[in-house]
């Protein structure tokens, strides 16, 4: 890496830089406000109050009541709790679960576990644009369906799924199903509320919006009952026992305070600019179309393995991802489900933006991609 050039971080779909505001809040909580919210004394109450404030902030952003939130250790735990908790609570009503083939591993692996337990899971494949069709949902949801789980924004392609249409299908089909949405990649980037999406359960996490890693949240509508997957104390309405991660929860609250949907315009400019550059090259194939969330662009550099290009770019100080960071090395199940040939799946690169990125970052990325295609051996 050239010393004069700064690092360029374009892997914000994996995680983001923690904002100074959030980091300071965490530091302050760790050093000064270290009480256990369950302690009866003032030190405990003080911690409880700070946590309540954060809870209120997150709840308000989601359009939920603060009593409807359960803080977890992150998106994965929230998804596990949502799927296992809802399925276990409803096992006597039915055994059918409907989800998509392009969910995050934390949803898909929970579903595999539920299959072991005797549930039947339908995995709907997306169309070539990476979006699950309404018609397929209509065919899959029936009177035995107890749970439907859909992500709002796909983490690899940025494709928006028609989550807001699902509640109506559940009603039309007379299905006894609760609706869960994994909104990890959407929260803080596009405006929505649990009402506008019409969902019963919703997952969000702090570290995709400049908050800390290690804290996420599950919204559980007050009209829906789920069962816990951990056992111990009575914290978080008995749904997530254990001493709360007070400092991280407060850092989450601070990150949510800083949400500004106007940033999307800046991201749209960046994303449009990159898209425009990439379409000039015959060695690039775009997988994210313009309907996708502009924060994420997925494309293949034909003929060069994802990892090779990733390491080449990293050598130049540019950080991107080869599909989902949680599935290091494995070919993307999302792109496969979209029906892409292996050659494209194996050469996919995901670029994901944050408010800290600039146009110059894209110029450098494009320059280095061109360098890469010239110098790297084609397979």
């Amino acid at each position, binding site marked *: 890496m050239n010393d004069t050039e700064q690092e360029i971080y374009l892997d914000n779909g994996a995680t983001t830089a923690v904002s100074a505001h959030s980091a300071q809040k965490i530091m302050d909580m760790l050093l000064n406000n270290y009480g256990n919210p369950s302690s009866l004394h003032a030190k405990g109450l003080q911690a*409880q109050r700070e946590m309540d404030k954060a809870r209120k902030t997150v709840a308000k952003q989601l*359009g939920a009541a603060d009593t409807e939130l359960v803080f977890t250790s992150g998106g994965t735990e929230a998804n596990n709790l949502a799927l296992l908790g809802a399925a276990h609570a409803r096992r006597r009503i039915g055994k059918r679960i409907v989800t998509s083939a392009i969910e995050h591993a934390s949803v898909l692996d929970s579903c595999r576990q539920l299959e072991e337990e005797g549930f039947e899971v339908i995995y709907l494949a997306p169309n070539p644009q990476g979006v699950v069709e309404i018609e397929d949902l209509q065919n899959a949801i029936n009177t035995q369906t107890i749970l439907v789980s859909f992500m709002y924004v796909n983490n690899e392609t940025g494709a928006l799924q028609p989550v807001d249409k699902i509640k109506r299908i559940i009603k039309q089909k007379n299905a006894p199903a609760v609706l869960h949405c994994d909104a990890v990649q959407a929260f803080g980037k596009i405006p929505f509320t649990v009402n506008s999406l019409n969902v019963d359960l919703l997952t969000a996490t702090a570290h995709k919006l400049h908050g800390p890693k290690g804290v996420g949240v599950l919204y559980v509508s007050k009209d829906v009952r789920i069962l816990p997957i951990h056992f111990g104390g009575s914290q978080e309405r008995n749904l997530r026992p254990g001493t709360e991660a007070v400092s991280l929860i407060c850092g989450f609250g601070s990150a949510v305070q800083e949400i500004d949907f106007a940033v999307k315009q800046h991201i749209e400019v960046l994303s449009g600019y990159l898209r425009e550059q990439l379409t000039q090259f015959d060695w690039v194939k775009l997988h994210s179309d313009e309907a996708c969330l502009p924060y994420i662009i997925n494309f293949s550099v034909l003929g060069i393995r994802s990892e090779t290009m990733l390491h080449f770019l990293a050598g130049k100080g540019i950080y991107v991802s080869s599909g989902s960071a949680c599935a290091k090395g494995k070919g993307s199940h999302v792109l496969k489900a979209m029906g892409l040939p292996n050659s494209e799946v194996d050469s996919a690169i995901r670029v994901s933006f944050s408010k800290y990125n600039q146009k110059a970052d894209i110029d450098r990325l494009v320059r280095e991609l061109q360098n890469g295609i010239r110098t790297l051996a084609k397979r």
Partner: protein
Amino acid sequence: MEEIILVKVGELVLKGLNRRTFENVLLKTLRYRLRSAGKFEIKIAQCIIYIKPLDENCDIEQASDIVVKTFGIATYSRACVAGKDMEDISQKAVAYLKEELEDAATFKVEARRSDKRFPFTSPQISARLGGYILDKFPHLKVDVRNPQLTVTVEVRDFGAYIRGAALKGAGGIPVGTGGKAVILISGGIDSPVAAYMMAKRGIELTAVHFASPPYTSERAEDKVCRLLELVSRYSGRMTMYTVPFTEVQEQIKENCPEELFTLIMRRFMMEISEKIARDKDCSALITGESLGQVASQTIHAIACTDSVCQMPVFRPLIGMDKDEIVKISRAIDTFETSIEPYEDCCTVFTPKHPRTRPVLHHIEEAERVLDTKGLMNRALENLKVTKIGYGE
């Protein structure tokens, strides 16, 4: 498509010449509360309040949630705005209610024309729009008796409005039109419900809470604040006065017969609350008592507590069963907070066998050993003030 909220005012229309005052209070309340949901134009004509979003940042969901918690509103609905011509009305109706029309099997159209300059009568509007809808959705059947979906068209002064079903509002009369009263709030299930019920009848609340540290904790008081915050979504903002009550309770405990402890304590509470009420310009007290629920809430006990105060004491829960109270408590979302297990001052020093048929002169006798005046003054000198419902 332009969407607005239409609000039908409740009992207000019955209030004759006072109607204006009532309407103005309601409008003022809505204007104040809706600020948190965005910029809205709010106006009234012919007993209908129009709430119109002024830009795209307005959150109409949040606005609906605010409307449903505002007293003085009988029903409300979200409606689509159309021009006053039949073609625009038909097109907008089909587009706005597309999903509902697709999902229903039977429907009818109800039309109301208060703008008599509109060239079609109400039955004509119904017939024309009904025909248009049948054309577009051939699966539908008209059923005027028991339709699954009623499409309502109102042709009014400012425009034509198309809506589905109207939803029930909070009822009651606007807060502030019924005077001011003090609610004695403990932190249990009942008192927040009592506060809610009297606010529903237009009363502006001031809260009084009794704290007995170290027998009660800061958390108990915090819980009361959170309960009142929940109530304030209906009642609007209020001030809470926390009365330091430890000395009073300790003195009663030491000097009076055990079986009269709760009663004497309650007499102190009423008297102190009445003093605060007078000072803060309130004209009544409100408690969450329900007849026979506990020893201090028998007919004889209530007679003894009431004899210390001159003001009327409102007890909206007096004839209700616990499960009826719990039902309201759940509906206004205070239940979960109410059942948090912190000791409040009503459970400190409770006698094993409290007197259920007390006699007033026995109690007065027992109280004679106490320095009533001194105790009360010291409590009143050290009131703590907390503002509730003012946002962050």
